[in-house]
């Protein structure tokens, strides 16, 4: 098993250590239940941002419809979990939510991903609106009132598990040949095609994987907050996710993670200045974009910081 190399084992140890640390803080009560919601938000936002980053940051396809895929996972997860009130029902909900979102992702991706830039953004926005309107008008989803009393199975352990899984799998993907194919599309689509890359295939692949993980985030969300309705997954939500991705850096997974944490912490801290909150938040984004338009990390990863010495020119 080549996967058991030093680097991967080291990563695994870090993943477990972070889990143990937060778990400890939770059991000792150092993190109060008020902040538990912040932690849940962080995890869900990381999953959403990292998966959108695959589409927008790595593959270069500007999508404004990520919340649409999230809502598919949220409704699928909630409906399954409500009729199967058990952990296996919860996990089945996540799985089916992810698959459903991926399928819709493929169906939406094939026609829209021919478009570029602004046109694609508008098309994905429209598609997400259509998904929202469908949920608004379906009987099984209870229309505008939404679904209530969804059993809560999402807890810190599951949140962390799925967040880590998302980061690891998407990181693996972007560091594979398929991932490089996606990145080449972002860099120069015409050159990519001419180097034998089936650009449509890889755009749709990135879109479907991104949608699947957004579905996971949605299912976790509905099972944590008991309650969902279509307005939660509107345009505003898609923008919120995009803000995290741009803030952290298009094409940086660790950037998305750091941005999700920072923005959640800032939002929590500003809770007591409720009226000023949105202004300060918006101002902060404007300042970041003015002084660091490539986002906190650009396309670099935190791990690249440790590679400095090896790449130094020796002449």
């Amino acid at each position, binding site marked *: 098993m*080549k996967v058991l190399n030093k680097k991967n084992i080291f990563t695994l140890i870090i993943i477990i250590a972070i889990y143990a640390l937060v778990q400890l803080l939770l059991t000792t009560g150092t993190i109060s239940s008020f902040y538990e919601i912040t932690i849940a938000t962080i995890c869900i936002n990381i999953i959403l941002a990292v998966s959108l980053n695959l589409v927008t940051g790595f593959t270069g396809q500007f999508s404004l419809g990520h919340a649409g895929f999230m809502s598919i996972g949220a409704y699928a997860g909630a409906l399954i979990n409500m009729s199967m009130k058990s952990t296996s029902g919860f996990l089945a909900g996540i799985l089916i939510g992810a698959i459903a979102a991926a399928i819709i992702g493929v169906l939406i991706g094939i026609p829209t991903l021919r478009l570029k830039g602004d046109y694609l953004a508008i098309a994905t926005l429209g598609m997400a609106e259509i998904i929202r309107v469908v949920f608004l008008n379906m009987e099984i989803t209870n229309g505008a009132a939404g679904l209530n009393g969804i059993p809560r199975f999402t807890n810190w352990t599951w949140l962390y598990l799925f967040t880590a899984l998302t980061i690891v799998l998407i990181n693996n993907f972007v560091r594979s040949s*398929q991932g490089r194919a996606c990145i*080449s599309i972002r860099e120069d689509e015409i050159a990519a095609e*001419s180097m*034998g890359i089936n*650009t449509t295939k890889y755009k749709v692949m990135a879109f479907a994987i991104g949608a699947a993980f957004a579905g996971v985030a949605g299912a976790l969300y509905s099972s944590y907050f008991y309650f969902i309705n279509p307005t939660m997954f509107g345009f505003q939500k898609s923008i919120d996710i995009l803000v995290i991705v741009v803030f952290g850096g298009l094409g940086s997974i660790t950037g998305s993670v750091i941005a999700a944490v920072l923005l959640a912490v800032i939002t929590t801290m500003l809770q007591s200045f409720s009226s000023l909150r949105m202004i300060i938040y918006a101002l902060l984004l404007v300042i970041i974009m003015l002084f660091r338009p490539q986002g906190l990390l650009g396309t670099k990863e935190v791990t690249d910081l440790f590679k400095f010495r090896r790449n130094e020119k020796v002449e």
Partner: protein
Amino acid sequence: MSLLTVEKLTKSFGGLTAVSNANMHIDKGELVGLIGPNGAGKTTFFNLLTGVYEPTSGSIKLDIDGEQTEIAGFKPNNVTKVGLARTFQNIRLFKDLSVLDNIRIAMHQNIDYRLPSALFRSNKYYEEEERLRKEAEELLDIFDLSHKKDEMAKNLPYGEQRHLEIVRAMATKPVLLLLDEPAAGMNPNETVHLTKTIAKIRDEFDLTVLLIEHDMSLVMKICERVYVLDYGTMIASGKPEEIKNNKRVIEAYLGEDV
């Protein structure tokens, strides 16, 4: 044996016919030049061969394992798959990626693992990535670029960027290599190096090459046969010395200056 046969190839952009009823045939192992004044339709001709544009009419046949196969209208990635590779007049490297990644992307079609292997890092993933890296480094080594493999493509000097584009095209394992003005913007030293590289490609890789070039002396020196395009029409073809003395060619080029 004819490797590429182009017949009556035509491309119109609205009212403008950029390539008009052009014919060309290339035998295996030849080094053929394509020349013509500015705006003659040379790049458009390449874009038709490589599927970037769909021809308005005409046929492009490529010998694939002894069979003449029509490739007109193929998508660019499928044209590459059957063995045509190209460079671009205005360099189109993956600028923000490393030299090594530029090559590895071009080798993607040879990779032998699928999505699940990529996501879950199976043994096959590690084996194939190892093989890919080795092959890419070997190729860079042959063209004296291996010491730059970790540099970003955009940080290479201009001449090396042009070189890297050729090496990247080679990484797709082509049978026919199309070079669009590879010497454009190069200084005399870089041009000499380029000439050597093209010779190397033919000798060591047994490749057929079609080359667009403005630099007449370069074409006359290295090409065995030359085609001349003017206003989208092939006005002449033949050995370099024949072309040099062809009346229509002289007129086309003089006409440009007058």
